[in-house]
């Protein structure tokens, strides 16, 4: 007997009978998404506070006794790791992936709802283990988010005993959680799309999340492998990575392990990780821009190809993080070349966003502010990436604030702006309410201008040669005293941006109750998630019958149509578009009106 596809046989859903199974141990992808999102934002706030502590030390050294060198390095490490892994990865994939994949695919839920629930609880466990390290003797590890051996395990590093073990354990648990979620996301996208929804009719959000998940499934194993071997080195005394080394005059029991091997493994995960975060952001922002510009996304196929190409290329650029570790010059040349090549599909995406805006009927709604802000920060961060991709430019700049500015612009601020765009865009669907627009716009301007006030001067500090990772600069001849004034101004801007995030929290919490009723499709969006019978969508998403899809997700401003959008599930015959007999696909649409 041939296998009957999942959606045809109507997936059996787990029907909750109590408050606990409905809202706590829920198997509904939307509740799990909100659990993932809330937990990720919670740890993200902790990481934000840690960054402010660092900035207070850097801006006003010797003022705050609370921040000693150990606390500073612990803050650096925890800030980096939390932001990259526990906030961005979890929020984009666990949060938006979970919420949007089944809705955009016209499915009732993920294909494995129980595994999905388990994924969240294992993720929560990883977060708890990570946060426990704040309360153990010695505190969390201060080895830097890259956890390079041998210093991770050496006595001089804060958290070299308990902290590092908890960090590694937490990462291993996180990877287990991610794998459970990831298998769900890819299988749902591949196997559970509703009738008519071919892969090339999927919104770019799903494409971005899908390819990012595949990247995650193949990249996180490198971190797992490195983490397991480092745990062995730390707890069992093996020498996978630990070289023969002397600590406070005494040789340690390690033989001749290879720290460089760790770096290769770490960055084999670490670079795809950038795209695990960036690809969902690219997808989400594409949909936001297209919807609010009332225009189909420019070059849909190219956008899909670019996502796939970036995903593939991201596995062969990792050693550009290791130019200063020393490598064969041919090796450096290879990685510089691949790094510059990856800029091509990335730039293509940027052009397509701008061309989608071109002559669009742009509605300056809040999500559009954040989306356009993202294009700015991403271009700036991307251009400095072209500098750093070259070995000769990277060597002098690698250990300076130029790098801090680069990766915060491209991987910190840019994805976070997309997250805000996406939260504001899908908030009406998730809650059925509208947020306060004025407050949201204030939030945008404070965040957007504030981050520029933080990171633009950092590029300049980098050119001056101000080293990163330093607790205090002290008196250094080649750094002018005015650099400290700049540092102080950056700190003030950082505190301002940090405080302005309260606007966001107040807004989304207050609007839950007081916001205007949003209606089912306030933006006039064509994609499937806005066509659910209930807002917010109820368990099972689609009422009695699964939807059928007749078109792609970007039918905006179609000439001759009643409205300026045609939902994906509108049948062909309903669409009063140009006369079928005279329909010519190569016909210039701009002339169709005249």
């Amino acid at each position: 007997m041939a296998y009957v596809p999942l959606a045809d046989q109507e997936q059996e859903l787990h029907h909750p009978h109590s408050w606990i199974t409905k809202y706590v141990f829920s198997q509904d992808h939307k509740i799990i998404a909100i659990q993932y999102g809330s937990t990720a934002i919670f740890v993200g706030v902790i990481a934000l506070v840690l960054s402010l502590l660092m900035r207070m030390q850097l801006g006003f050294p010797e003022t705050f006794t609370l921040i000693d060198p150990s606390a500073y390095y612990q803050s650096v490490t925890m800030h980096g790791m939390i932001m990259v892994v526990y906030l961005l990865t979890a929020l984009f994939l666990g949060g938006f992936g979970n919420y949007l994949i089944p809705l955009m695919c016209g499915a009732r839920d993920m294909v494995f709802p129980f595994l999905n629930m388990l994924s969240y609880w294992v993720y929560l466990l990883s977060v708890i283990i990570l946060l426990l390290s704040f309360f153990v003797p010695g505190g969390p590890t201060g080895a830097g988010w890259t956890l390079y051996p041998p210093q991770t395990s050496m006595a001089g590093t804060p958290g070299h005993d308990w902290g590092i073990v908890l960090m590694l354990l937490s990462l291993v648990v996180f990877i287990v959680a991610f794998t459970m979620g990831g298998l769900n996301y890819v299988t749902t996208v591949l196997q559970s799309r509703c009738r008519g929804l071919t892969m090339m009719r999927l919104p770019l959000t799903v494409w971005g999340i899908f390819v990012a998940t595949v990247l995650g499934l193949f990249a996180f194993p490198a971190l797992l492998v490195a983490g397991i071997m480092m745990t062995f080195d730390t707890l069992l005394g093996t020498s996978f990575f630990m070289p023969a080394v002397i600590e406070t005059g005494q040789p340690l029991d390690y033989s001749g392990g290879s720290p460089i091997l760790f770096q290769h493994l770490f960055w084999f995960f670490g670079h795809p990780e950038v795209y695990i975060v960036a690809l969902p952001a690219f997808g989400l922002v594409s949909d936001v821009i297209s919807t609010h510009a009332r225009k189909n996304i420019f070059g849909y196929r190219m956008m899909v190809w670019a996502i796939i190409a970036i995903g593939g290329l991201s596995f062969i650029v990792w050693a550009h993080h290791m130019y200063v570790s020393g490598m064969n010059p041919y090796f450096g040349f290879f990685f510089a070349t691949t790094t510059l090549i990856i800029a091509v599909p990335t730039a293509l995406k940027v052009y397509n966003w701008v061309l989608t805006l071109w002559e669009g009927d742009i509605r300056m709604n809040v999500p559009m502010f954040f989306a356009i802000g993202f294009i700015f920060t991403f271009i700036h961060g991307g251009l400095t990436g072209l500098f750093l991709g070259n070995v000769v430019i990277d060597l002098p700049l690698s250990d300076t604030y130029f790098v801090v500015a680069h990766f915060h612009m491209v991987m910190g601020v840019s994805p976070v702006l997309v997250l805000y765009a996406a939260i504001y865009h899908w908030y009406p669907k998730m809650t059925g309410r509208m947020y306060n627009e004025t407050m949201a716009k204030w939030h945008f301007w404070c965040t957007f201008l504030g981050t520029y006030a933080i990171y633009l001067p950092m590029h300049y500090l980098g050119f001056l040669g101000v080293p990163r990772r330093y607790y205090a600069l002290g008196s250094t001849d080649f750094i002018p005293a005015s650099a400290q004034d700049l540092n102080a101004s950056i700190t003030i801007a950082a505190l301002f941006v940090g405080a302005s995030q309260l606007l966001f929290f107040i807004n989304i919490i207050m609007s839950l109750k007081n916001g205007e009723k949003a209606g089912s499709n306030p933006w006039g969006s064509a994609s499937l998630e806005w066509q659910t019978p209930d807002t917010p969508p109820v368990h099972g998403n689609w009422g009695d019958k699964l939807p059928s899809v007749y078109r792609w997700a970007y039918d905006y401003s179609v000439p001759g149509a009643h409205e300026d959008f045609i939902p994906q599930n509108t049948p062909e015959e309903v669409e009063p578009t140009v006369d079928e007999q005279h329909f010519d696909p190569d016909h210039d649409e701009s002339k169709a009106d005249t």
Partner: protein
Amino acid sequence: MSFIKQVTNKPWERKGIIGPLRPEGAFPTVPPEKVALGFFLMVVGVIFSLFTVSYFIRMELPDWTPLLEPTQLWFNTGLLVISSVMFQWCRNILKRGETRNLKTSLVGGGVFAMAFIAAQLIVWRGLQARGITVASNPADSFFYLLTGLHGVHMLGGLWVWSKASIKLLSGAEPRDIKLSVELCTIYWHALLLVWLFIFGILANT
């Protein structure tokens, strides 16, 4: 539809339902569990490949002393091969819709897998008695690490096997465990391949 054909579609041109009157699936005749297992096995493949790369890089460093693997590993390999064959036997029985030898083959497959794990632990104990511990030399560390990790993957498979076996022994219809047995069989063959690969590199270096 091939992948290339899919991604060269122009979605803005064609309206209406594309394809037959059923939901879309990239692999329409394959259950989602099998697709997920396929991805999971790829993940497992990546994990062991990365360990292999690390193994060869680490081997180049001067403190490496090759380990002489115990000959008992050949016997252990035999146990795992039998286990895998029994799962295949069980799968074939279910495919033919028969019930004869169904319980023997399913329970036997798991029992031989457990025997394999026990035999691996005996190898560990033997090595430790010879003073070869996890930290004595990087070659030894890799031996324990790779065999241990393979064992952990076996335990994961045994968890699924135990659920299917309990179901069958408590009177479930054979068709209720068909998918589990199929997944277990694929998983066992894959882990046998991983083991042969690990054994190969351990024994030849």
